[in-house]
């Protein structure tokens, strides 16, 4: 057998799954002592050029509480045409279409190489993808111009039959009607007034005219489609029209007096966008793309007032509970995000400004719906332009790399339960036998909704081993997990991707080394980081840091080789050596979810060619700063690299060249020293 490294890599490529532990501790108690929970990173739509979808529907276990999909791990009785569910052990009859199966004539889903398989569903009406642009007009002239160009360009990238809509906002919010000839028409809303979905739909004329009591006039058949499609039109029909409309877009005309911020009604604009789609296309794939150039300054969701003399909230304000608008704004955007998620739509936020734009308050919009959040200095930068363009890239099949309205359903074998998920998803609150009572992340359910996802979207899924210590699992026993993802493919088909995996159980007492060897420290670092971030949402920052530290120390105590009270004796196996460093990095990054920074170090250490290559591959496009030693921009770099020299220890270390790095972070060396000391300490 290959090394675990290869095994991990192989599994990731085939199934899009990486577990923290690839050999599972066989009892609850032992699992808890492992410190790093049994969990996996799941990339539901992992790109599989070699995996053509099958054109039929999956066969499900007939037990209503199970409904697992037939998979290679199932035992099949070819003679009796029966199969046993490997999760609930229910014996199922094959459907009539499977009449001809035999050991040599197996359907794809029974073949081991199809541990991940994708089904194409023909049922149900297909509806086109929807792109709703929500555009801030309180921008500087060149910013707006750049944004307009990007948007115009994007029209040529959209699928021709996709529906597109335009909402612009500044002091007011304008919903543009795209269907009319001659006079261009838009519906205007006050930027300060919170409207319910019903009000928005009434005002946009989306509700069917109520005809109380009198059925005299039959409803005209085309009336409804007309109403809803006034704002959302197929790209191929109105791209000229929309190009002109975008071209004529002006900066918000309302005067901004000296000392004021422009009045920006982001909250209402987003609310209207959500309400519009909610009323017209619930549960179809739709992307609300918000482009904003500054913080919301009025109405629901405002983050800062329009007085320039009062600066936008800082971390300091937030810690002191002194951020006046934060709670209300966060609540507003959360409400919107939840509604959007319920409708299966997603929200992207493209925030380009030198100052803050209130992403903190708005983050849930992207987080809960699987949207992108991109932050840049200006719309007139390649960072934004290329990132935006990259959203519309296509895969090897010529399909857009995006999918919508997914539900992820997870089945586990009996020894495992699902503790929760962390990622761009919301719970569907589906209780079942495999749902754990202990929650990690978004728990209490076996199903989640992921409104927008692409081939790299990854969730952290956390499990709990529930097998009791006194009920050992037979040697060689395997646990299985099945991930079933229903989603709307960018080609508008409904698809189901099923991934079924299995791992060996091992007894910690006797097989610790096995388990240790099967530790995926990268995955573990990420999974722990997600947990840390998730906890930070609700807990105080220092507490989370302390928790992370303690977990790390416990891990080292468990797996390190050392003599008690002797830090110098401490040694970790290869499979663990990177983990503390990564954690150190994460620790420094605090609880900000900025994965690009993790790679920054590598990026900047690589030659420029490498940099370009990486720039091309990453999404969102990283901010690329070319600097040199001593250059002013070097501070960005220095603040991220391992601060082995700081103002604290410069003179102690003394000899080497280079400027001290002004940071509160400890150097990795110091960190490791402390870690070792604590790990070997018996007091801990």
């Amino acid at each position, binding site marked *: 057998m290959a090394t675990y490294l290869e095994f991990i890599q192989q599994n990731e490529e085939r199934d899009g799954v990486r577990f923290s532990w690839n050999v599972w501790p066989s009892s609850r108690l032992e699992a808890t002592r492992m410190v790093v929970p049994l969990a996996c990173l799941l990339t539901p739509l992992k790109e599989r050029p070699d995996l053509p979808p099958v054109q039929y529907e999956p066969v499900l276990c007939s037990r209503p509480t199970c409904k697992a999909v037939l998979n290679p791990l199932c035992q099949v009785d070819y003679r009796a045409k029966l199969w046993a569910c490997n999760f609930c052990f229910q014996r199922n009859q094959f459907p009539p279409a499977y009449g001809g199966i035999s050991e040599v004539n197996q359907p794809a889903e029974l073949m081991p190489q199809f541990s991940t398989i994708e089904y194409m569903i023909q049922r149900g009406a297909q509806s086109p993808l929807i792109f709703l642009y929500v555009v801030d007009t309180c921008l500087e002239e060149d910013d707006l111009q750049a944004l307009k160009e990007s948007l115009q360009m994007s029209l040529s990238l959209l699928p021709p039959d996709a529906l597109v809509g335009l909402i612009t906002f500044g002091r007011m919010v*304008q919903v543009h009607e795209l269907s009319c000839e001659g*006079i261009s028409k838009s519906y205007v809303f006050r930027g300060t007034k919170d409207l319910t979905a019903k009000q928005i739909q009434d005002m946009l004329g989306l509700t069917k005219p109520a005809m109380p009591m009198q059925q005299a006039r039959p409803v005209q058949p085309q009336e409804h489609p007309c109403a809803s499609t006034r704002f959302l039109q197929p790209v191929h029909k109105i791209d000229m029209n929309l190009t002109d409309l975008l071209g004529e877009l002006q900066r918000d005309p309302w005067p901004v007096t000296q000392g004021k911020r422009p009045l920006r009604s982001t909250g209402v604009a987003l609310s209207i966008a959500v309400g519009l789609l909610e009323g017209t296309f619930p549960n179809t794939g739709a992307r609300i793309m918000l482009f904003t150039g500054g913080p919301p300054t009025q109405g629901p969701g405002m983050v800062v007032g329009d007085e320039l003399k009062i600066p936008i909230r800082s971390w300091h304000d937030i810690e002191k509970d002194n951020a006046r608008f934060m709670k209300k704004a966060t609540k507003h955007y959360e409400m919107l995000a939840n509604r959007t998620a319920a409708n299966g739509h997603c929200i992207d936020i493209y925030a380009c400004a030198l100052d803050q734009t209130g992403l903190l308050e708005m983050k849930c919009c992207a987080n809960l719906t699987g949207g992108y959040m991109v932050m840049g200095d200006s719309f007139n930068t390649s960072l934004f332009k290329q990132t935006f363009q990259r959203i519309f890239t296509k895969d090897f099949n010529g399909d857009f790399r995006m999918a919508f309205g997914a539900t992820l359903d997870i089945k586990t074998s009996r020894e495992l339960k699902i503790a929760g998920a962390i990622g761009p998803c919301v719970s569907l609150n589906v209780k079942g036998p495999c749902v754990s009572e202990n929650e990690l992340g978004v728990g209490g359910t076996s199903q989640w909704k992921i409104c927008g996802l692409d081939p790299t979207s990854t969730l952290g899924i956390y499990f709990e081993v529930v097998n009791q210590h006194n009920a050992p699992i037979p040697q060689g026993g395997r646990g299985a997990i099945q991930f079933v993802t229903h989603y709307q493919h960018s080609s508008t088909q409904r698809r189901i991707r099923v991934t079924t995996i299995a791992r060996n159980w091992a007894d910690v007492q006797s097989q610790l080394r096995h388990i240790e060897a099967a530790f995926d420290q990268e995955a573990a670092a990420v999974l722990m980081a997600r947990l840390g971030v998730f906890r930070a949402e609700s807990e105080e920052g220092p507490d989370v840091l302390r928790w992370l530290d303690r977990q790390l120390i416990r891990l080292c105590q468990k797996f390190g080789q050392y003599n008690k009270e002797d830090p110098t004796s401490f040694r970790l196996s290869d499979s663990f050596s990177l983990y503390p460093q990564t954690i150190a990095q994460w620790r420094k990054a605090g609880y900000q979810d900025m994965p690009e920074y993790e790679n920054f170090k590598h990026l900047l250490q690589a030659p420029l060619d490498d940099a370009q290559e990486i720039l091309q591959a990453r999404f969102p496009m990283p901010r690329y700063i070319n600097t040199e030693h001593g250059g002013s921009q070097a501070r960005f770099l220095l603040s991220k690299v391992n601060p082995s020299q700081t103002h604290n220890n410069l003179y102690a270390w003394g000899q080497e060249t280079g400027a001290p790095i002004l940071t509160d972070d400890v150097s990795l060396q110091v960190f490791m020293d402390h870690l070792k000391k604590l790990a070997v300490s018996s007091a801990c």
Partner: protein
Amino acid sequence: MQISGAVAPAPPSSGLGYGPPTSLASASGSFPNSGLYGSYPQGQAPPLSQAQGHPGIQTSQRSAPSQASGFTPPASGGPRLPSMTGPLLPGQSFGGPSVSQPNHVSSPPPQALPPGTQMTGPLGPLPPMHSPQQSGYQPQQNGSFGPARGPQPNYGSPYPAAPTFGSQSGPQPLPPKRLDPDAIPSPQLSELPPQQKTRHRIDPDAIPSPIQVIEDDRNNRGTEPFVTGVRGQVPPLVTTNFLVKDQGNASPRYIRCTSYNIPCTSDMAKQAQVPLAAVIKPLASLPPEEASPYVVDHGESGPLRCNRCKAYMCPFMQFIEGGRRFQCCFCSCINDVPPQYFQHLDHTGKRVDAYDRPELSLGSYEFLATVDYCKNNKFPSPPAFIFMIDVSYNAIRTGLVRLLCEELKSLLDFLPREGGAEESAIRVGFVTYNKVLHFYNVKSSLAQPQMMVVSDVADMFVPLLDGFLVNINESRAVITSLLDQIPEMFADTRETETVFVPVIQAGMEALKAAECAGKLFLFHTSLPIAEAPGKLKNRDDRKLINTDKEKTLFQPQTGAYQTLAKECVAQGCCVDLFLFPNQYVDVATLSVVPQLTGGSVYKYACFQVENDQERFLSDLRRDVQKVVGFDAVMRVRTSTGIRAVDFFGAFYMSNTTDVELAGLDGDKTVTVEFKHDDRLNEESGALLQCALLYTSCAGQRRLRIHNLALNCCTQLADLYRNCETDTLINYMAKFAYRGVLNSPVKAVRDTLITQCAQILACYRKNCASPSSAGQLILPECMKLLPVYLNCVLKSDVLQPGAEITTDDRAYVRQLVTSMDVAETNVFFYPRLLPLTKSPIESTTEPPAVRASEERLSNGDMYLLENGLNLFLWVGASVQQGVVQSLFSVSSFSQITSGLSVLPVLDNPLSKKVRGLIDSLRAQRSRYMKLIVVKQEDKLEMLFKHFLVEDKSLSGGASYVDFLCHMHKEIRQLLS
């Protein structure tokens, strides 16, 4: 408002009786107009003693002593005209029975009169509405009439039972030989046709004739210019064409008073009950021969004002101390003359530059206002017009929207301009609406207009700033494109519901955002029932008529409209409303905002393009083109002793002195009532100064000042001699029309009747020579008061007929509120012009005839107009040739009844009649749609409604009946 509060008359009147002796001559000479109606039939021509037997109506001749001064009461007789009165001739009686009857309704039938007593006697059954003893109304006069209303005890005895009343046995206090200039001889014997005599009725020719009075005034005063230099002059009647020369007092085109000689004390005023009021039309348009007010620019220091009362410099200010100071003519405060304004005085104490300075020599002039007079201390921007067009189903279906958009394309070139400006400074904007609003961006840089829909009508706002209000010339292409597209865009609309308040709010907010004043032109079709602020329900209920709740029909349904109006006024947003209802739209509520913002309401019921296009377009053109002052405040200052206490018109008041007008045009009038707060002085008279601060249509802030000096009198006779009945009626109508908002209509009518009776009784008691109580003696200047007042009383608002809708009543009510004197005059007493009596080649208007069916000859045709309606009545036996040349049909029966356009025919009669119609229309501020009415046709009922001297279907009294009733009321007061 109590009628008792009313004081201050000011009527136009025949040229008699005041002023120069010449008028005396004319008075005596032309007897007919002197009020001796009986006499003008040759019968009792010089009605000396022999005339006296005639009972009846007398108008007291103004016994023209040379000036207002020194008038002696008629009793002293001297130079005045002889007239009948005195003892009744045997066998003659007037008003007999009714007088003795406390309740005229039950007055004994005419036959009770001794045979042979003619005409006057029984006053017929009196109209039910005046029943004197209805307790509903307490005459609140000052003591002088005492308990007049408790009729029975005393008058019962002097005038014992009815039948004999007329006879000489009646208590006739006067010596038989007395000449009484005020008495009207009864026409009876001489001229009444026999059969009339037997009917015991009053000869209509014997009672004061409006036509005669108007004619006389035209003849007497229409030739010479009216020079305003002399204090207290009564101007010619509004029906007379005359030129005005401003020599220190405001032209009567700007200000008319109920009386030009006001009592010195409030006691006198209370006794007379003559309302003291001025009807002010600050921006009146002038005939081309008269110069509009000069604009005075005092530079940065602004207009010179009294430090204490803030009155503006005017010709009545007294310069003293060699010109270094001036004494305010209003409050007597002594002010320093600023150095830059100093000028020496001549030997008469007048500034030597008096005639170079309009403010020192003219009655009316303007000041350029400084920035202190501007809102927020900022010079105003040019105003804007916003056209707000209902595009609901009804508006589209009738073709209104298409018509309007087509018209606007050309009409916008005629926005009002300042002086010789090349283009109008006014910017325009467009909104269409049904239950949502559509704003249009018509910025010149756009290829196509942009529509912005605002559906949030509950919380209205303006969605755009730039491109909404534009210069017409810059954005012409976009605007034209918009106006082309509007009818198309909504051609298939099914939306029937409309909103109203949000529309006005939107307009107002747009003006606010643009920081300017302006005017909204609203074209609206239906009751606003869509869910929005100001939503209305149909609450029309004819059953309320004649109940205590009738007033609710005139009141707005909700307070939202007043609140909105208030906001509009604060912004200088004037609203003109064009209504095109098919059914009840609640004019009473919808007109609140136009009314309070100085706007106009136009109503085209059941609008159809074919029939109403001309009328609507003509009104629209005039309305859009007329010069308007925006964001105006009017203040009327008075000299010590009197004070402006009440105001009537289309405006808003947030305090008791400032009349705020979001917009004020040349048609709008404010009637101001004055009361005494101190004693006045005959010598110094009384001064009025009306100051109007406004923004011109080019955005210039100005002050227009009108000054008027009035005489004061210690003798009531002077008051009565200098009254103007037309102005009085204007005041009384407005007073009554406002009264219906708060009081039952019947109470309002009774108030008017009582006041009128008190006015006349006071005259009779204090000014007329003693005569038989059976005689009705009217002051010369007020001899038309009864007939005109009767017209007011029987008008649609105060006495609705079955055919008049609630909306029409509310509409008329608010129209009258801002009418000037000429308009109320013709509105209440329509003009009836015979068409074939005068020679066909005559170019002048034919002399009018009295508005009574009796005056119609079935061989003739008549035009009748009242400023709003225009009828052509065709007699059944009109010559065929006439029919042919006018209607191009061969016989009477072929004339289409209800025709509204006369065929254009090339013959003198057709040309003349059409020319006459055009000229009548040109005189009125609203287009009068012609209706051709054939005698004996069913449309004739409509026409007859305007024959105001006749009894009306709705129960209104005939002139004669009312006069008799009035007589009785007076006698009750006197006894």
